[in-house]
């Protein structure tokens, strides 16, 4: 994924990649008309990095030490360590620039009003029901956005969302479930969109305690998994097989690994070598959101029975899962969107100092590979390092990653210019325009 200029016109790293300087576009304006300068950018990042704000962006924008505004149009980022992917990571969804007055003043104002620099301005926000935004006339690119007004309707029930689009009540969907996609393809007056992405659902092993600290047990379960069947079960066929590494063709530094075949006898042998000759009982926990987690858990249970595994499936509300199981559990289902870069996904999930480090794999060799890759600029060298990292995960299986989801959606045929972004959390509505024949709304 290559970064696209937004507020900054240009940027350049220092030789040792530990300091980046960004040049801002001239006369940028906030939604309320006040000017947006380097001081606002610095204040916004300062608020993000302050633990008190508890901002989600804090551990997703890379190892940033401090941000200073050298003049009204230049911002300098000091990093704790060399980091090649900073520009991409700064485009993180929650890392938006807000006026310094709010960043340093009372943040609670953000509960009721949203002042930013984006292509659309917030009109009204009704939690769990409706969000209305309007074209921002003060946007730095006068041509964009083409749409005057956008209403985002919240559909708790996916089936209902599909029916609403088919009946013409809505113009487009942000994302569709695999189970809905077949219906959307068949409906007339609709254009179904699909793009492979790095979004995946996996089985996380707690590698720091028995029984899953023993690599052979993990490998045994990996051998039971029929990945082709799982693509059908979990993604209704709209997905690609995973080989237990978090990268797939959607990532630039993806290195193909040989496809793993189902080998029940091999799995049974590994299990007995690991001391579980008469089978292994374990509870696989799946939160209830998204529903795919439960489906994967049930499929894993059935596929692992012949090899002597007895996997009991336990679901729980997402909140309880976050509180009691996530990052602590020994055997649970994970679900992640694609990260902008390979380093992003590795250092988020699998390195020892990873923000989430759900598997507690803590593999020193793997950490070294990722750290080195992070600090090298040369493309081929980075590809080789990431390749070795993937091979290591492929062999030691800290977590089974059997299936990647294609991102699916659908729009009415009169909607033009909408491209599905593999990252799964980026919706470029500013590039969308409506052909004539689109109904007048609202």
């Amino acid at each position, binding site marked *: 994924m290559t970064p696209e200029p937004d507020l900054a016109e240009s940027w350049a790293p220092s030789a040792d990649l530990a300091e980046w300087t960004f040049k801002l576009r001239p006369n940028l304006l906030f939604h309320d008309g006040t000017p947006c300068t380097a001081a606002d950018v610095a204040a916004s990042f300062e608020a993000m990095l302050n*633990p008190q704000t508890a901002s989600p962006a804090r551990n997703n924008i890379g190892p940033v030490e401090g941000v200073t505004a050298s003049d009204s149009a230049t911002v300098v980022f000091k990093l704790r360590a060399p980091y090649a992917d900073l520009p991409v990571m700064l485009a993180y969804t929650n890392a938006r620039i807000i006026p310094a007055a709010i960043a340093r003043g009372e943040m609670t104002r953000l509960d009721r009003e949203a002042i930013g620099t984006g292509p659309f301005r917030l009109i009204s926000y009704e939690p769990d029901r409706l969000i209305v935004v309007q074209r921002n006339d003060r946007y730095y690119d006068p041509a964009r956005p083409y749409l005057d007004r956008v209403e985002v309707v919240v559909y708790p029930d996916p089936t209902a969302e599909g029916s609403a689009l088919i009946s013409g009540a809505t113009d487009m969907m942000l994302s569709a479930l695999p189970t809905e996609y077949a219906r959307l393809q068949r409906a007339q007056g609709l254009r179904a969109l699909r793009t492979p992405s790095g979004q995946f659902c996996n089985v996380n092993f707690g590698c720091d305690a028995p029984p899953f600290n023993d690599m052979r047990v993990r490998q045994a379960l990996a051998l039971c998994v029929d990945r082709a069947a799982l693509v059908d079960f979990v993604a209704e066929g709209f997905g690609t097989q995973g080989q237990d590494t978090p990268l797939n063709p959607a990532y630039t530094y993806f290195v193909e690994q040989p496809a793993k075949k189902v080998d029940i006898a091999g799995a049974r042998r590994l299990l007995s070598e690991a001391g579980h000759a008469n089978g292994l009982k374990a509870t696989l926990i799946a939160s209830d959101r998204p529903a795919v987690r439960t489906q994967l858990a049930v499929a894993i249970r059935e596929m692992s029975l012949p090899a002597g595994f007895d996997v009991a499936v336990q679901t729980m509300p997402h909140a309880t899962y976050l509180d009691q199981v996530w990052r602590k559990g020994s055997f649970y289902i994970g679900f992640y969107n694609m990260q902008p870069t390979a380093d992003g996904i590795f250092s988020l999930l699998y390195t020892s100092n990873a923000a989430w480090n759900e598997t507690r794999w803590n593999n020193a060799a793997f950490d070294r590979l990722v750290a080195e890759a992070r600090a090298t600029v040369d493309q081929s060298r980075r590809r080789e390092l990431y390749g070795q990292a993937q091979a290591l995960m492929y062999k030691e299986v800290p977590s089974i990653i059997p299936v990647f989801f294609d991102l699916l959606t659908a729009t009415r045929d009169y909607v033009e210019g909408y491209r599905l972004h593999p990252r799964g959390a980026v919706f470029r509505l500013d590039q969308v325009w409506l052909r004539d024949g689109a109904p007048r709304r609202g």
Partner: protein
Amino acid sequence: MSASYLARRLLAMVYTLLVVSIIVFGVTQILPADAATVIMGENATPEQLAALRDRLGLNDLGVVQYLRWLSGVLTGEFGASMRTGQPVLPTILEALSRSLTLAALSIALMLVVALPLGILAATKRGGPVDVLFGLVSYVGVSLPEFVTATLVILLLADWLQLLPATGYVPLTDNLWVGLRHLALPVLTISIILIAHVSRMVRSEMVDALHSDYVRAARLKGLSENRVVYVHALRNALLPTITIVALDVGYVLGGIIVVEEIFAIPGLGRQLIVSIQARDLPMIQAGAVVLASTYAVMNLVADFGYALLDKRIQYG
């Protein structure tokens, strides 16, 4: 309905609301995970969680939180939602208004259908109409809400594509589209209510028709219509008022599932969302508003009953 009785009923209502709020608050205290975990979601780090809990006052003792909530309520201040920061009361009242709209439409449809149906079945007792009525009402009473809702969606929204399956458009924005969206949920709820109420009206009507005063009226030589539609009907409809009033309470809180399936942001759904998000002020406000609506409906039922049936004297 003397003033002292009214005062006592209000006192009893306050007691009920108090017990409700204590039970709900008590249970929410023991729920695993809290609002902070939910808000932070995947991005929580221990010290960030601690900071957020502090800001939301979740670190205080349960009792302290409850008393703070109670003192707030007594001064009309229901607090702000922990999830969205919006003030709680307007959101709850908004949700309540949507549920009331749903309730009003469903009960109106129910009354229009259930009363004549029940009366017809009673007057033609044992006839083909009565047997058919018996069959349909049994099925109506036995379907859980989500089964009825699913079948209604399958039939009317998917196969016949007559009405939109879900989504909510406020009537104030666009009456016609709003009504079309409410059509299926209203139909689902009224099927359930019609089954219950028409069975009740039928049995009340049958009892009235076999009563002494109806026999006396017949022996006075009055016309059959006058006997059935004046003497019997008047007495049969009395208990219906209580049931209809209680139904409003049922529709508000009881059909959480219908609101879930048809994505109607009513009081029931608001409660589910806030319980899942452990949004304490919202849960408390929702439960108390729900319970008080229920209690008010009970009072209205008793009041209506006393108004129409002079025999009832509330001392």
